[in-house]
């Protein structure tokens, strides 16, 4: 075995990171089918707006100065060069773009490789149907970024993809540059049903969690085999036999090494506790519980472990594990210190997440800021892009929505949506309301 092979082998666990870098490189290329208005180089000031910043509260009569795809200044007094184009918001609301931390849009029927309960090597990017009109409709609802996740048939479903909703661009131009890799886990009724109906493991929650322990135990063995091999190679041991490269194990290894954000679909309070115990047993961190309809029962356990929730505002009753869902879940969990995001899990709700978040103001009395955070900076944190988007802050991506009506109400609807400072949606335009599709729609 040559040292070259050993080096290659040593790099294997970084496979995911390499893939991300490759995607980011593509995303940086100039879009082929776009005019200069989608250059990421626009410069303008939105003036006379009510800014709901998410991180700096509300600013009446505020301005946002956008340059080269970023927010360069915002506030009550913003100085921009006189030549810079001014967009008069006419007193309307401007918010950060909405971020959906749980969507299955643009994945056709490819959300579940449900032929085995552990398939971490499945990459959503491979199934991402970037032409899906659901992306356009989400954009028209003010969504600028989304985490596209696997379904919940499998215990470990695969690696998710983070997109910006730049409908009309090529696939790789829609991928969120340098977003961390998320992986989807699930437990409870869905994997029970899918595999149980086939008389396979797991058909119970006992089976659910044992399948997970089994998978991570294998991954630890795999890790040890490679470590032993690399050690032998290092010592110059000619008898070293390179273990088989196993992409499934590689993916699990990345989880154990903390290189992926673990997003777990589960509903019940007892499941949260079991998931936390397994994560502790194997030494990985859980980023967020998704659905998490019973988070209000054990919010302290989530808060202590810095686990966020991505939940529905008021969806309930569709199965047993959604029977104890209450619309106060979001606010009760938040008050106990849990970071809360409102997610869609639906091509319908992704079009009006602002209304869903507004429900938290009614059920439990979330403040305007808190409701905005559930739509923007909190889901950004869940996805791991909160340093790039999710609020009106200097240096962040210019992902912005200008609203007709108050966004946290039944009546707020997006007027214009910018992503990276480029205008992707304008309700005033005919046809689809997309600048890039004005001809030949």
């Amino acid at each position: 075995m040559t040292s070259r092979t050993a080096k290659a082998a040593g790099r294997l666990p970084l496979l995911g990171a390499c893939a991300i870098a490759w995607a980011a490189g593509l995303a940086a290329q100039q879009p082929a089918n776009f005019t200069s208005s989608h250059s990421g180089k626009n410069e303008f000031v939105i003036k006379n707006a009510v800014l709901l910043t998410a991180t700096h509260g509300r600013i009446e009569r505020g301005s946002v100065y956008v340059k080269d795809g970023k927010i360069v200044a915002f506030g009550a007094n913003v100085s921009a060069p006189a030549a810079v184009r001014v967009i008069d918001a006419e007193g309307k609301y401007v918010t950060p773009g909405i971020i959906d931390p749980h969507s299955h849009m643009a994945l056709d029927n490819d959300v579940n490789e449900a032929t085995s309960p552990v398939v971490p090597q499945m990459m959503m990017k491979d199934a991402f149907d970037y032409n899906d009109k659901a992306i356009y409709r989400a954009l028209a609802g003010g969504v600028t970024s989304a985490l596209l996740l696997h379904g919940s048939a499998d215990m470990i479903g695969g690696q998710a993809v983070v997109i910006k909703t730049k409908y009309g661009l090529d696939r790789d131009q829609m991928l969120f540059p340098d977003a961390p890799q998320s992986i989807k886990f699930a437990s409870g009724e869905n994997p029970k049903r899918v595999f149980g109906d086939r008389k396979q493991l797991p058909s119970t929650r006992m089976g659910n969690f044992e399948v997970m322990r089994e998978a991570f135990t294998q991954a630890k063995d795999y890790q040890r085999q490679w470590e032993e091999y690399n050690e032998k190679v290092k010592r110059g041991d000619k008898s070293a036999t390179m273990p088989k490269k196993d992409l499934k194990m590689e993916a699990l290894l990345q989880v154990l090494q903390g290189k992926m954000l673990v997003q777990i679909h589960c509903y019940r309070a007892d499941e949260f506790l079991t998931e936390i115990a397994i994560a502790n047993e194997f030494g990985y961190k859980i980023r967020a519980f998704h659905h998490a309809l019973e988070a209000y029962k054990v919010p302290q356990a989530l808060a202590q472990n810095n686990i966020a929730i991505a939940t529905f505002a008021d969806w309930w009753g569709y199965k047993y594990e959604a029977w104890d869902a209450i619309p106060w879940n979001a606010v009760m969990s938040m008050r106990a210190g849990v970071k809360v995001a409102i997610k869609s899990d639906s091509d319908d709700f992704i079009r009006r997440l602002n209304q869903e978040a507004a429900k938290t103001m009614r059920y439990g009395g979330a403040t305007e800021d808190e409701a905005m955070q559930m739509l923007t900076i909190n889901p950004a944190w869940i996805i791991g892009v909160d340093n790039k988007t999710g609020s009106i802050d200097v240096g962040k991506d210019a992902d912005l929505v200008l609203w007709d009506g108050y966004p946290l109400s039944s009546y707020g609807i997006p007027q214009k949506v910018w992503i990276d400072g480029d205008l992707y949606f304008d309700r005033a335009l005919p046809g689809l309301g997309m600048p890039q599709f004005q001809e030949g729609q």
Partner: protein
Amino acid sequence: MKRAAIRCSPFALGVSFCAMLLAGTVTAQPKATATAKPSASAALDPSKPIAITGGKLLTITRGAIENGVLVFENGRISAVGSASSVKVPANAQVIDVTGMTVYPGLIDSETHLGLTEIEADKMTNDLVEPSDEIMPNMHVSDAFHAETVLIPVTRYNGITNAIVAPDSRDTLPGQDSFIQLAGADATQMLLIRDIAMPLNFTGKQRRNESFATAQYPQTRMGMAAQMRQAFTDAQTYAQNWDEYNKKKAALKAGEAPPKTPVHDLKLEALLPYLEGKKPVVVKAEEPSDVETAYALAQEFKLRVILDGLTQSQSIYDKIAQWKVPVIVGPIYAAPKEWERYDAVYKMPGELAKRGVKIAFASFDAHQARNLPYAAGFAVAFGLPYDEAMKALTLYPAQIWGVDDQLGSLDVGKTANIVVANGDPLDVKTDVKRVFIQGREVPMVNRQTELRDRYSHP
């Protein structure tokens, strides 16, 4: 019949319902403000006048009245007007709702309330009988689960009346009931049984999952032919009975009696609809389906309420000419691939603009509580606000033939009253009090109980 059904119930509320009211009042949230829940100490007596004062009354028929007074007694509204024009009776139990909005209970024109608990658990579902497509002899009133957890959750948001319809998997799945969302038992809550019959023509009634398992009707042609045959059979059936009855009446002494026709409950169930005594609710989405189903209804002279129309933007003008009411939506249905994002959101506004009488529905059970927000969203997409409120109250009352009882704050109507801290159509608005037939309904349901159980100071 419908009047009798509604009128017989106001004073029929049983002891158990009163007990429930008392229990609810006792457990009322102590954190509630004085204006929100002033009655936390004692239950209101519905047989004595109750006066709601200081609020903004959305009368529906006569606009909004600021600082209004609404008086009701024995389940009926006895006075409505401004503070200066209405005298509060001396013996009235006065509820000050200053700063609040008061409006008639909302009506959901299509739900599955009482037919399902947990969607995924078959044993809790009585939604539809899919063994045959022609099932007009199914009555949702036979399955209606009055004690469902879902009804207290729904009325918590100010919905006081609803149509309960079977699932739309069959072309003729059975007959709807009109319910009230409070009462001691099913008998009291089922205000009008068999009020209307759905006629579904969306394509989803085809039995065409695969060629291997396909059964008749595998196509829309089959669906239409099957229904046509059913209505024709019912006509023949009616004729046979008519003839029989005539012969029997004209029977002379010594003559052999005519042969008695065989009873057929399926065909009998269709007769009130063929006679135009009750409406059919024609559910279709695409223009071609809407036109086919409407033509079929015309062929048999059925009274039509349209339902759905989510993809029928191209024939709004034609639909307006038919002069039939429409249950709109769901407006959240996805538009066609090539359509603008708001193609379906705009439907209520576009139909209202053409003079069509519309009503909103949740088309759901668990999410029925979100009924008013669809109307609010439709307002954002062009429906005038007053029309939206009417489409949740007066218009459905008219469509279902109960506008002499429900749908507005008018003297003589049933006291189904909602008090909320703002605009009924806004998601942020909190409903504070609900009265059904003049009795206060406790703002308690399984979800508030879970909230309270897990609330730690």
